[in-house]
């Protein structure tokens, strides 16, 4: 018997009535194939709209709140991501990809402004301030990296007046996300990593993960009945840890082979010998415990979370019912089972540490992984330094449903697509999958390309999207210091429009990996060489012409006796010679 639990349960569990200022957090642990472990942290805090407007910050962090008010930002989505979600083996993305960002930093926000120019000015204020707050190079999101998506994003919050809200979107694919971004992220939490599930977050483990994404989402939420509005901030961290890798002690991180006695060998191999061994796959779930995997103990519950009810259960693990889980703590805790016993949630003790210990176990049942609605891969084809082409392969695994989705590309200005070469081709059918196109061409050094497509992909088929592009030649000063590494092109953002719908307004997304674009790079000593060469040529030419015009030409035998510099030097040489001759 195989039991199934999709991630759709999680938002449903967390969603609740918004009343006043409150705080929720939850950690969901989910073992993935190949000894990986997905840890989904979710922190959500509320502040009443009135208190937020008056700058009386309680659970909402003041530093972020002031920035948002200063930049007139009504809704904010900020993502820091590293790594790639391996959909083939890990299945459906956490939160259906709604809390995931593209590699590097991604930011989009709804900004209140009277005009486009004003909105852009406020956007610049926003990115500059956020850059300082999160120690990230967000200030490099300028006009060339900013687009205004049309169909790919919808506001998640309740906005009274959407007519003067402007959506701006920027991606920094080259940004290296690291510990310095986690520290300010943790500081925004009310319990600051000192208590609650956030005490497990550690920079060494988080940025060592195979995939990790940190998200901050701020939106206004209004109750269905009254005018009671709150400003909600949601912070999310999703990470996929390799259990074996993260269990390595920090002071001795080099993996070492186990002694041969401990390894079960495949004796059927011809080369099997006392000193040669092909290890057998043990087919068991690995043993792990929280302190090993996260490198830190879980320091009890954050006292701000609810004391009772499902909200108080802040640690959940999604494992088959037969999986043995020992709870190691001195304090009071409760355990509850739900979703046909595949979800075990724990109410943490306050003030004392808690550890989950999972022994090594041979399993007879497993969890069914939710299947992604789409698979996407994108690559650059072609050769040479002048042209190239982009190919995106999007696969619909569903045997019955055609999937409608949008495909958003935000390309840098120096990667100039030829829109007439855009082809969307489905292997199985002749129908054109391309339904709508939104295109805003790039302007050199002023703005990048914004390409948004609405496509439909029939069931069980693969869509191949290709277009050619031209590589621009940059000015000498526009190259980064590591120009030969190449330039990053942001990932494509795919939003699934139908027939699948997420339970809330978050939407369902997936993102491709970023592209590395190699542009023709000059020799950087070139300007000086050019100066010297042209100067020499010009000086030669000038000297010749000038001498032709200004010199008097006489016969070779009529040249006056050596005078001037030549004569002086000859006299010197003569005197030196005579002196040496004497000596």
């Amino acid at each position: 018997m195989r039991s199934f639990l999709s991630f759709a349960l999680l938002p449903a569990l967390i969603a609740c009535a918004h009343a006043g200022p409150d705080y929720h957090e939850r950690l969901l642990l989910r073992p993935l194939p190949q000894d990986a472990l997905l840890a989904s942290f979710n922190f959500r805090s509320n502040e009443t709209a009135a208190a937020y407007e008056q700058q009386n910050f309680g659970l909402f962090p003041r530093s972020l709140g002031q920035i948002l008010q200063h930049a007139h930002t009504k809704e904010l989505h900020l993502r820091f991501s590293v790594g790639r979600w391996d959909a083939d083996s890990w299945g459906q993305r956490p939160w259906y990809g709604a809390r995931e960002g593209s590699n590097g930093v991604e930011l989009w926000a709804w900004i209140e402004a009277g005009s486009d120019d004003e909105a852009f000015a406020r956007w610049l204020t926003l990115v500059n301030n956020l850059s300082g707050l999160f120690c990230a190079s967000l200030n490099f999101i300028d006009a060339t990296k900013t687009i205004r998506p049309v169909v790919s994003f919808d506001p998640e919050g309740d906005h009274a007046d959407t007519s003067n809200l402007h959506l701006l979107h920027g991606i920094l694919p080259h940004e290296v996300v690291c510990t310095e971004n986690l520290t300010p992220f943790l500081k925004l939490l009310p319990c600051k990593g000192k208590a609650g599930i956030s005490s497990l977050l550690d920079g060494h483990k988080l940025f060592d993960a195979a995939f990790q994404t940190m998200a901050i989402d701020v939106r206004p939420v209004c109750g269905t009945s009254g005018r009671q509005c709150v400003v909600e901030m949601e912070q999310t961290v999703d990470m996929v840890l390799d259990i074996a890798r993260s269990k390595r002690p920090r002071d001795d991180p080099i993996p070492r082979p186990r002694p041969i006695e401990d390894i079960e060998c495949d004796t059927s191999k011809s080369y099997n010998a006392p000193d040669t061994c092909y290890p057998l796959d043990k087919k068991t779930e690995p043993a792990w415990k929280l302190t090993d995997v996260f490198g830190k103990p879980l320091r009890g519950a954050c006292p701000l979370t609810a004391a009772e009810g499902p909200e108080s259960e802040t640690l959940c693990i999604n494992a088959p019912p037969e999986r043995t889980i020992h709870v190691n703590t001195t304090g009071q805790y409760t355990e509850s089972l739900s979703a046909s016993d595949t979800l075990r949630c724990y109410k943490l003790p306050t003030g004392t540490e808690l550890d989950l210990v999972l022994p090594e176990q041979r399993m007879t049942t497993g969890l069914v992984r939710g299947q992604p609605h789409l698979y996407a891969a994108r690559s650059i084809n072609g050769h040479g330094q002048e042209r190239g082409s982009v190919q995106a392969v999007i696969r619909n695994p569903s045997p019955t449903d055609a999937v409608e989705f949008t495909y958003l590309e935000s390309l840098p200005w120096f990667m100039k697509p030829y829109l007439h070469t855009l082809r969307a081709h489905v292997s199985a059918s002749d129908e054109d999958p391309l339904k709508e196109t939104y295109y805003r061409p790039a302007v050199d050094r002023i703005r990048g390309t914004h390409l948004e497509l609405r496509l439909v992909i029939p069931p069980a088929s693969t869509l191949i999207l290709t277009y050619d592009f031209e590589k621009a030649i940059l000015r000498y000063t526009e190259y980064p210091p590591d120009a030969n590494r190449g330039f990053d092109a942001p990932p494509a953002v795919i939003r699934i429009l139908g027939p699948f719908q997420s339970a809330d307004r978050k939407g369902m997304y997936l993102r491709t990996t970023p592209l590395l674009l190699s542009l023709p790079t000059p020799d950087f000593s070139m300007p000086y060489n050019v100066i010297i060469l042209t100067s020499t040529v010009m000086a030669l030419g000038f000297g010749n012409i000038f001498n032709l015009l200004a010199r008097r030409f006489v016969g070779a035998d009529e040249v006056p006796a050596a005078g001037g510099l030549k004569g002086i030097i000859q006299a010197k040489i003569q005197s030196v010679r005579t002196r040496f001759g004497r000596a």
Partner: protein
Amino acid sequence: MASSGNEEQKQPPPETKQSLWLRRAVIASFWAVVAFLGLPVWYKTTAIYRADLPLQDMTAWANGQVCKPVFPLHIAVQAPLLAQDAHHLLHATQQTLDDLSDFPAHQLHLAFAEPPPPANASQQVTADGSGPADLDDTVALSVRLIPVETGVTPRSQLQPFSATLDVYYQLSQIPTQSSTSSPLTTFIAHELHQLYAQERVRLSSLYSDAASQSKSLSPELTAQLQRDATRAFKYAPTYHLTFSLFTPTSSPSAWDIETALRQYMNPILESFAGISNFTIDTQVQLYANFSPSIRQPEYDENTKAWTIFKEDVSGFINAAEWPLSPSIGQGPTINFALYVPDEVQSPLFVKGSRDNSWLVPQWGGVMILNAQSHETTLTKEALVPAMQVFSTQLSSLLGLPQTPASLPLRISTLTRIHATSLLFSASSTLGALAQVYQKMPTIPVPDTVAKSVNLSLAHLRQTCESLRDGRFQDALQNARTADGEAEKAFFERSMVGQVYFPDEHKVAVYLPLLGPVAVPLIMAALKEVKAGIAALKGR
């Protein structure tokens, strides 16, 4: 070597006059191109735009040659006296005052004001602190002479919430026409002199030249003023107030700050409204320990309290972890930190005293609140001591003088001090800008700088006039604009860039071209000049 043996050398045929002149013309035309085309183009393309600045004026202001600020304070005297008697009283008092004066710029001018209708004399002062309505706003203080029969006379009482000094006297103390002084006039004069003692000291210290330093000033008072001055923030048109609640545990996690601020902080902010604007924000920070670099609190058996060392107070603020970043927008942020210690370390005091609050100069104030009950929400009542401490700290952080007892008087003193200091600061900024302009010929000066400078100068002139006329509020407004414009001109961003491209750099880039071109030109010209001189001599 070849020529050494050859004694007889063939001479080239003499040059024709035509070819000689042709050669000269060629060289001259090359030089003409260089001089009339090359150099102007070079000059034009590398020239830096420098707007004209009124350097003379700017330096004059910086040296204090244009305006010596004076502070004529108009004091209205209300007395139930006949006009003649009153005039005489005023005259005598004025004379005594002038004799007492040790700082000539600060002048007190007495004027007789019509006594208000006696029926409601006692209710004249309205609760909101505004003075009698018929007095125009140039009046700095009104003195009410009230005849009484009993008690020690003359005696005076200063109204704490209005600029009014009540002087009680007996009718017999009115100076007669013949006498030049009486106990009453001397008393009033001394009272007034005393009232403005601190203001005079602070204003004269702004003048900074030793000559005008008050001799009557005791060293303690000077030290006190010095301390006050280092504590206070530099004047800004807007201050951001940040009230933060820190606790090392998870409680209290909320506070009734909104109502507490409305009740205890808004009145004092309203009285400062004429000087600066304020924005307020608050935050609650849990799990916020004080700095780990200081020693842990110790339990004191005698006082049954936990104590931190006085030396550690300066390191109490945990700047690394407490999110006390300045607020966004113009103007400095004043921080007020309320620290609620852990229940097991409560009550917490500074060692050697029962003090639990202190002021961090030019940063803000800190208070340790030893809460009576350990509820999760701090009520308004529990916040009352904190609000009182914070409002006192705010006054000294804003540089409000500690005397006299009347708040409107102190605020008007602060207005004059700020107007004067802004006047001096704007002048010295302009002076510095003039120096930069003269000393660094390579920096570009855009027109906006000139505009700002002119605006600043105009406002400085108006400030000076307003001060002379006793319109101190106007003076502050003008001085504020003047200072803002002066700062804007000085910190103009485009003036910085060019400094990093020195002339040597340009020469290095152009030398490969200019060197080879210049050498034949110069050599040819020299040779021709030499030949010309030789030809002239030979003739």
